């Protein structure tokens, strides 16, 4: 694809880079915005799902007769109502939405009812009799990999896995280059450490919710909170065995996703209940359902070995990553293995990854999926080497930083990237020079995310009153309606308030990939700019027609068509509004389209600095100061770039300190609520300072890079490094909850102090 690299240099922007008010603001501050659970339909039923109390059990039979006969019940469904699709991924999604022969984790759906009221639906669930044969279970990744572990499902292991593992290990991957053993020999010091991280949850405040209707002629409508209406249509039409065109999916306003709404959990169930009952069915997950049965992250177990010379040059790096992503095969470890050493320019590097199945819910994406834990382990060992060798952690990172031309450990060669700029900005920032008090420590970490592009389709209509409607297909999770509209306004040369951007249903545009991979501002922005360029070309043609000159003799400047030079003719410029007003006389409506599988997303780097204080008597950690440095390529709306940097940092703080999935010996989730799944609250935090760097992405006309994900990556190691320095003892397990920190402190204290 020919991209406009030349336009990225020193371009003066009029709209991009400003901070207009968000177009969805008023709806959201007045309570008018409609989310997944906010819609009702005439005759609507309440759908409720029965979930397995066992982490692993064969389902011998399900008797739904009493529930079906209960008052107010209009439909009861089990796996028997579905047919397994041929496609393996679709099959896994369906089996995750409704257990077939086995319940695979605590909370796995086994049946569902639709009834005239909440009470009737609840009562009916109690009447469903499931005959379970309870099986041995496993929830820990290391346990699941042992040859004698209970096997979740046979026949899912890839040939590359090799010998010595249980059948739960589904895949193996490997990346790197150079001779690592030779590299370790060259090192003055080598440190090898093992790490564990627990699973966390995206923790979006809006639980999954949907409203399905099905008509007798096979057409269906689905309203749901999702990061991708087209994904929902693709998956649900496959599961329901219907043509994609017959299912229209409309995305609601979305109450947070962070990757967790890039798949389906309840939508096929609602559709089947609607089909069977002939009535609209709404399903809203409870918070407990969300934590037990949506898609948390992988948990991990990792070994990292790094060698360094006395002057801070990394000679070799080796990481072994073991992830579990629940009861189905999961490819996330591959992203961890690719990302682990991405920040470094290394002669010798090797990363290996294994995925294991466990009796846990099916993993879903969470902001830079797979990267935070791998980079946490690497950045922890780098920090310990700096401590051991008495080196400045930012200097060491600057010395080894990946830059344009670096061959990354995962094979690509980087173009222009912003890592060194972030590191240098951190080094120069007053935060880095600020004094620390007793019991306090400062931590540093780099972060990285690949960023994606993908299938994108945008339509831009120039309305006859001179306003512009942009139609796009990606739910707005971070302010994208603003940033997309700003890029349209920039390209067309009109004020931002003349442009309105709408996120539309699946019937209104071609396929758009899910809002994920930090792709929207990049890819939808790119398509919007191209659509605007198409509309400009058409408007130039219309002006040429009016003026009676060649279309090639007309250019677009500052929102107007103009003759391209004195030789083209002497006509006063025509504004977009003037051209639009007479469009009916010049050939009809004016629109621009662009369809693309966008490439060139441009990788993203960030650096975080954090100061903490550890209470040596209780192990409590207080975050005192936090600064985020990140390369945005070009910050389209700086407020929302800052918002991504701050939000991701705080999610990472939660992951580092308190958030975790806690399974009991019985394999059941013990903290399925916001009381004990502890996301950071306002009083836990300081202000989160931000520094935006702008190193243009050569793959985007305005230099834009995705900014959504990188920010969750550095906090894990930044906090771990700060805590380890403050406490004087290295922490290697997340979360660093107070009991873990206190135990580490007590173990490290001289015996006398313990008396």
């Amino acid at each position, binding site marked *: 694809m020919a991209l406009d690299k030349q336009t990225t240099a020193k371009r003066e922007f009029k709209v991009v880079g400003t*901070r207009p*008010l*968000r177009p*969805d*603001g*008023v*709806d*959201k*501050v*007045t*309570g*008018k*915005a*409609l*989310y997944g*659970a*906010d819609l*009702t339909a005439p005759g609507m039923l309440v759908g409720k799902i029965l979930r397995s109390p066992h982490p692993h059990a064969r389902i011998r039979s399900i008797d739904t007769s009493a529930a079906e006969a209960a008052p107010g019940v209009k439909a009861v469904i089990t796996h028997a109502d579905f047919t397994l699709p041929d496609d393996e991924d679709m099959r896994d999604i369906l089996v995750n939405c409704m257990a077939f022969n086995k319940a695979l984790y605590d909370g796995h759906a086994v049946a569902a009812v639709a009834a005239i009221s*909440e*009470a009737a639906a609840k009562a009916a669930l109690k009447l469903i009799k499931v005959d379970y044969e309870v099986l041995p279970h496993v929830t820990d990744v290391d346990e699941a990999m042992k040859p004698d572990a209970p096997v979740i499902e046979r026949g899912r292991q890839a040939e590359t896995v090799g010998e010595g593992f249980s059948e739960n290990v589904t895949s193996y991957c490997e990346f790197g280059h150079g001779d690592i053993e030779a590299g370790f020999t060259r090192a003055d010091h080598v440190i090898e450490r093992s790490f564990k991280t627990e699973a966390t949850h*995206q*923790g*979006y*405040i*809006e*639980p999954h919710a949907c409203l399905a209707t099905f008509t007798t002629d096979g057409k269906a409508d689905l309203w749901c909170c999702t990061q991708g209406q087209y994904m929902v249509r693709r998956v649900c039409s496959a599961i329901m065995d219907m043509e994609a065109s017959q299912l229209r999916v409309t995305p609601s*306003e*979305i*109450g*947070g*996703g*962070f990757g967790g709404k890039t798949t389906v959990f309840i939508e096929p169930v609602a559709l089947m209940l609607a089909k069977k009952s002939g009535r609209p069915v709404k399903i*809203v997950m*409870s*918070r407990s359902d969300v934590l037990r049965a949506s898609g948390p992250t992988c948990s991990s177990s990792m070994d990292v070995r790094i060698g360094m010379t006395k002057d801070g040059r990394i000679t070799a790096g080796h990481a072994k990553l073991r992830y579990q992503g629940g009861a189905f095969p999961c490819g996330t470890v591959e992203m961890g293995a690719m990302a682990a050493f991405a920040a470094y320019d290394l002669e010798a590097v090797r990363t290996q990854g294994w995925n294991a199945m466990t009796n846990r819910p099916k993993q879903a994406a969470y902001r830079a999926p797979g990267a935070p834990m791998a980079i946490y382990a690497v950045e922890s060992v780098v920090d310990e080497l700096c401590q051991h060798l008495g080196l400045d952690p930012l200097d060491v990172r600057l010395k080894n930083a990946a830059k344009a031309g670096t061959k990354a450990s995962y094979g690509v060669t980087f173009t222009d990237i912003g890592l060194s700029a972030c590191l240098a900005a951190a080094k120069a920032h007053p935060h880095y020079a600020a004094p620390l008090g007793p019991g306090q420590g400062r931590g540093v970490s780099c972060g990285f995310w690949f960023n994606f592009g993908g299938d994108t389709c945008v339509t831009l209509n120039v309305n006859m009153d001179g306003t512009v409607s942009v139609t796009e297909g990606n739910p707005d*999770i*971070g*302010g994208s309606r603003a940033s997309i509209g700003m890029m349209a306004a920039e390209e067309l040369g009109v004020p931002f308030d003349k442009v309105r951007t709408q996120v539309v249903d699946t019937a209104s545009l071609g396929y758009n990939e899910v809002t994920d991979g930090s792709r929207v501002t990049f890819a939808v922005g790119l398509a919007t700019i191209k659509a605007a360029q198409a509309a400009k070309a058409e408007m130039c043609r219309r002006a040429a027609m009016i003026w009676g000159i060649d279309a090639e003799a007309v250019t677009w400047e500052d929102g107007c068509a103009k003759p391209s030079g004195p030789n083209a003719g002497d006509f006063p410029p025509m504004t977009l509004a003037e051209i639009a007003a007479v469009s009916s006389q010049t050939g009809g409506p004016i629109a621009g389209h662009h369809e693309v599988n966008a490439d060139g997303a441009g990788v993203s780097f960030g650096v975080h600095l954090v100061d903490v204080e550890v209470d040596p008597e209780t192990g409590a950690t207080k975050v005192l100061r936090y600064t985020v440095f990140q390369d945005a390529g070009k910050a389209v709306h700086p*407020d*929302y770039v*800052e*918002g991504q940097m*701050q*939000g*991701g*940092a*705080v*999610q990472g703080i939660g992951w580092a300190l308190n958030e975790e999935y806690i399974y009991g010996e019985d394999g059941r989730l013990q903290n399925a*609520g*916001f*009381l004990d799944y502890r*996301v*950071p*609250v*306002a*009083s836990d*935090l300081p*202000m*989160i300072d931000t520094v935006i760097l702008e190193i243009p992405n050569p793959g985007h006309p305005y230099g834009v890079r995705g900014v959504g994900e990188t920010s969750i990556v550095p906090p894990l190691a930044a906090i771990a490094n700060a805590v380890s320095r403050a406490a004087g003892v290295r922490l290697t397990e997340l979360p660093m909850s107070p009991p873990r920190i206190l135990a580490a402190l007590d173990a490290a204290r001289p015996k006398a102090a313990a008396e």
Partner: protein
Amino acid sequence: MSRIHVTTSVNGDEVDFLCEPDETLLDALRNRLGLTGSKEGCGTGDCGACSVTLDGRLVCSCLVLAAEAEGREIATIEGMAEGEALHPLQKKFIEHAALQCGVCTPGILVATKALLEKNPDPSETEVRYWLAGNLCRCTGYDKIIRAVMDAAAELRRA
């Protein structure tokens, strides 16, 4: 279960509805009265998305029975703006980009309004502790705190 007839005041309007004895005020507001601005994020009083005031006191409407509302005065996010005129807090939240997904926003606005009525000049720490029961997962709270402090300053000037 027989339903209970409740007459109450919501945002200054007298309303009535029939509810189940175990129905929450949140469900009644959303499902009986069509006021879906209050959100259910947890149903256990841990997230604050359902915040309303009951006789002027900030509460989680998911932890109040609808039947308890008889004869009381309830205020929700839907009553915060006066016609087309946004409350200064609402304006400041938009100006400071203090919201992203927006699902926690109604609860935070209701909670903040209650704070500023009680304490017109709160410190940053007081704001953070007052809002500790309002979870936001998008913003990291930074811009929310800035918006609240700025709105408080503007209200003090007014």
